[in-house]
């Protein structure tokens, strides 16, 4: 019989949440499609190692693969933060995918992850993120003086430029952080996942779509040695599977986010949006932040330059 690859994957997502369920379903498909040869067991956030330690753990081979937000690895190389989110510079998730697959993004990500003995299979994105808060956030000037949770990275710099104090916190401590007022507001992936961890219980306002992240790019990565041992047919299967995973992740998240927003409004949360002038202003500040971020590391400059070149080509920026 063919060799069965029994792997373990850890994700940033909490078991039962939308992100987790999308991944769980896709992994079942992968097992079926590989005739049972690729059997990957999924573990929730922190059940094997903490989210910030995941890259190390995969590199060391503690588990074979993972699905995570590269922002958690910004301490390793600031380029990871640029891969994760460019605030409102990206306009849509399909833009990111076009860049990844046809304008050199995939190669850059592989070069970056390769340094840590990890193979980058491909991206999986979610669209616009919300900001949930205890104080009303209706215009950019409302951000002055508030404490806001972020995962770190470029978004922190953006908030700083608006006069807010960014606080770095893992998703697990977010609820308590808002509840106890350590932060006034929080950005944490998709609206649906905000709802799953109950942030509507401890906030009163939801800014959606927000200006700080039109897209968030998570990724599926595999320990390099484990990847190398995989036969070619399974490698090809996995690559096309990530393509499918990305679609499921994106669409399921959009669907669940629409439902979540409905539920939050019903619960009495106030839904706010920025004016188009403020959105344009936020995009300009985002560009400034990105240009400064290039100085942080050579890889960071390579990634951001490549993205900006692509966006110039499409005419999205000047």
């Amino acid at each position, binding site marked *: 019989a063919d060799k069965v690859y029994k792997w373990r994957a850890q994700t940033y997502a*909490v*078991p039962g949440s939308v992100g987790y369920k999308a991944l769980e379903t896709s992994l079942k498909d992968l097992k079926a499609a590989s005739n049972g040869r690729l059997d990957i067991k999924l573990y929730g956030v922190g059940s*094997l*190692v903490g989210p910030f330690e995941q890259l*190390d*753990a995969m590199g060391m081979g*503690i588990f074979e693969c993972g699905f995570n937000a590269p922002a958690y690895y910004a301490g390793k190389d600031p380029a990871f933060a640029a891969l994760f989110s460019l605030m409102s510079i990206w306009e849509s998730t399909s833009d990111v995918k076009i860049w990844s697959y046809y304008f050199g993004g995939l190669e850059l990500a592989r070069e970056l992850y390769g340094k840590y003995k990890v193979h980058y299979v491909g991206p999986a994105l979610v669209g616009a993120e919300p900001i949930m808060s205890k104080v009303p956030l209706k215009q950019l000037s409302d951000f002055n003086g508030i404490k806001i949770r972020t995962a770190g990275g470029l978004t922190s710099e953006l908030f700083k430029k608006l006069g807010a104090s960014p606080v770095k916190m893992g998703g697990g401590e977010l609820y*308590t952080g808002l509840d*106890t007022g*350590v932060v006034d507001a929080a950005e944490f992936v998709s609206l649906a996942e905000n709802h799953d961890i109950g942030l509507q219980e401890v906030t009163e306002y939801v800014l959606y779509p927000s200006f700080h992240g039109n897209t968030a790019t998570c990724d599926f990565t595999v320990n390099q040695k484990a990847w190398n041992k995989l036969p070619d047919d399974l490698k090809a299967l996995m690559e096309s599977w990530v393509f499918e995973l990305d679609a499921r992740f994106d669409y399921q998240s959009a669907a669940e986010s629409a439902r979540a927003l409905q539920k939050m409004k019903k619960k009495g949360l106030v839904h706010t949006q920025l004016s188009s002038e403020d959105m344009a202003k936020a995009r300009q500040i985002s560009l400034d932040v990105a240009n400064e971020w290039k100085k942080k590391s050579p890889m960071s400059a390579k990634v951001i330059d490549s993205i900006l070149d692509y966006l110039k080509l499409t005419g999205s920026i000047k």
Partner: protein
Amino acid sequence: MEPGLLTILMFSSFFALLALGIPLAWTTGSLGLIFAFFLWGPDAMSVVVLRVWDVMGSFSMIAIPLFVFMGNMLQKSGIAHDLFKAIQVWVGGLRGGIAAATILLCTVLAAMIGTVGADVTITGLIALPFMFQRGYDRHMALGSIVAGGALGVLVPPSIMFIVYGVTVGESIGKLFMGGVGPGLLFGGLYIAYILIKCYLDPSAGPAAPEEERNVPLIQKIALFKSLILPIGLILGVMGSIFGGIATPGEAAGVGALGAILCAGVRKQLDWNNLSDSLYETMKTVGLILWIVFGAMVFIATYTLGGGAEFVKTALVALPLNPWLVLIIIQVILLFLGMVLDIIGITVLLAPIFVPVITELGFDPLWFGVIFNLNLQIAYLSPPFGYSIFYLKAVAPPDVTMADLYKSVLPYMALQIVGMILCMVFPQIILWLPNLMVQ
């Protein structure tokens, strides 16, 4: 390796080595690493450094050294002395009144302090000699302190809830609120038991002599003064958490500073008291955190090997009523609580049981509090009960372990009754968290 076989090998070697007397921290840590080595090779052993690093970076864990320090400092400050005097003047006239006052003192202390050790030590030093002197029945006196002190687990703040919250990702704020109802229920049960028992049998806990009871009302009211510092501390710690000022970890820092100030107010603040408290804290932190490190390595290896998933699938697939599964889990915890350290049980078993409970459709917050109710019994249950050890350390030398073991039995029975009440009427736990979320 098959997860079933892994479960048998890991847990049987764990219990065997533990029973032989190897410290818990080294047993779990080393076994986790040995199994990781044989299953996946030397590189997998690096899981130890990743787990340690993860704990070192937790916002919530900082509460442990700070609450332990706070408890040690409060002990030196002597504020509990005045408090006990006041409570005792008010209720000492009843048969069993001093024991009831002891439970009240424990409850107030529990609302200030995050650790059981400080509760038991303080009460043991103050109330025990007093009760012995008044001719209280030995077991009545000892039992009230051992059980009352364990209320520290339930009445927030509580490092047990913090360790649980960090381990399974449950909201610490909600767990704290969930502990209030059961804490008051258990305290009430103890007091009712004491008063009824002493009413029926006055020799168990005689009333205070007439001359002590005849304190003029104006003096009785003046004794309220002694409540100022404790209430200030409770407001400082719990108020800063629920007033939206601080995380539970930071609130512990507020409490620690508050305890230092209390010592200052009572003229007990000097380098000796401060440094002694710090050194004692270091010892306690060492034993707690290294149990956490060891247990985390053990459970990471077990989970990576598919063990946790195996237990979940097996328990969920049992052709049993979900309630029966819950009761089985409770009985397992009850037995382990007799012989195992409480932190160890939490870090080892909460990650295995919580997914089962969620899958069966129970409320995970409710289960989190029930889990800690059960571990609260472990503080008392012989032979390995922290509360018993703490009291033994400060009790007069003629108090034997046998005395202590016997004294806890009625209180353990009450705890089991209380736990069943909380399972049958979940609102005892959930009313406050639900109220706060509204």
